[in-house]
């Protein structure tokens, strides 16, 4: 066991954690809106809109995240037309490509989580709102969405942790996130176990924090108060 290496690599890995956290927060932020949007489409009665939303979530949940990143980073650059538009400014950066891929991926999972949460809301609650003369729009924003968010907290907590692990794939498109730096240190020192303990420890610590924050929120917004 090489303790010196563990101590010297710790600050480097901690610096890389910032990249991981940036990727995570950006993709979760955009992914939540995307997920909400597609969850609402899924509840639409129009069969085409409904199928479109289902297809989106099916494709992104049925293929590995790695394929999605590669298509966006390596694949989209191939389309000549894209290179001439302003989108190219974004798509030539691996950082933004990773965020786009993560957003689309987490959006698909989030839409499933939110959809099932919307469907478990008891019809009586909506009927109660209607009989009080509240407009449909306000019922949706003030009653259905808050209940759905509370309902989906445990599943969404899992999704955050899965996404945090997913950000490690950014290292495959040349980004130096926590896993990227860990791999670099391993391949230069050939001490995989030491680096794994430090990097894994940082990941576990983040998992621990996310887990407890979600648990706290669940308790705070529980129905039995």
């Amino acid at each position, binding site marked *: 066991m090489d303790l010196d290496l563990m101590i010297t690599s710790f600050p480097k890995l901690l610096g890389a954690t910032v990249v991981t956290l940036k990727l995570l927060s950006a993709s979760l932020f955009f992914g939540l809106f995307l997920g909400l949007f597609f969850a609402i489409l899924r509840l639409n009665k129009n069969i085409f809109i409904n199928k479109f939303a289902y297809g989106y979530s099916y494709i992104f949940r049925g293929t590995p995240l790695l394929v999605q990143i590669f298509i966006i980073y390596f*694949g989209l650059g191939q389309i000549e037309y894209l290179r001439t538009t302003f989108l190219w400014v974004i798509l030539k950066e691996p950082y933004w490509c990773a965020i786009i891929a993560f957003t689309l991926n987490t959006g698909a999972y989030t839409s499933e989580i939110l959809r099932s949460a919307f469907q478990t809301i008891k019809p009586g609650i909506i009927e109660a709102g209607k009989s009080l003369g509240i407009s449909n729009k306000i019922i949706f924003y003030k009653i259905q969405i808050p209940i759905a968010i509370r309902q989906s907290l445990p599943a969404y907590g899992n999704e955050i942790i899965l996404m945090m692990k997913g950000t490690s794939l950014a290292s495959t498109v040349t980004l130096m996130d926590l896993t990227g730096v860990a791999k670099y240190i391993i391949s230069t020192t050939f001490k995989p176990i030491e680096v794994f303990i430090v990097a894994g420890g940082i990941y576990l610590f983040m998992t621990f924090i996310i887990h407890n924050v979600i648990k706290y929120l669940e308790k705070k917004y529980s129905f039995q108060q």
Partner: protein
Amino acid sequence: MELLAFGKTGWGDELFYATLMTIAVSITAMLVGFFFALIFTPLKLSKYKTLNLVGNFYTTVIRGVPELLVIYLFFFGGSGAIMYVASIFGYYEYIEINAFITGSMAIGIISGAYSTEVFRGAIQSIDKGQFEAAKVLGINRFGQFYKIILPQMLRLAIPNLSNVWQITLKDTSLISVTGLVEIMRQSYIAAGSTRDPLFFYSFAAVLYLLLTYVSMKLINKLEVRYSRGY
């Protein structure tokens, strides 16, 4: 379309074999995972605190650390660890383990952590009376487990195991970083030599979708079979 032709002119046959490789790695990893689940599920359900701790340590660490990091650990550390064990027995030559074994071990350990959780949940949700009734009937411990608990547990576990299978199948794409020629690696090679990454990665996505779709259908059949009588 000529890019997908079989034979020397296209990538069809290469991608076909790569797909078989993905299936082979996934199945091996799933079985390795079952093996680990077989060890760690009893530990998690044990009444001894120390054994619980060992079981929880395994599932928490593996499920909290990115798959890619675990794969790097095995890829860079695997042969070192084997050589260390071999050196104890007086063998000092260089040993290289092939990518298939490293890959399916790494993915297997990950899939094992998820399977352990599934089995634990399934066993815990079986009514206590079933254990007691089996005991009262004088069935031996082996029979209790294989004839009474296991069939009931499988029914509850199959839907969740199908999720584990999907996760495992998708995780195998990560082994491509170690150079094992499965779908992802083959697409990478093909994309590099034809300069057509969009086509080949999209095709890889289609292959994965196909695999998840077909396995879903098969597992659904299995689910129906094990739910007979309910």
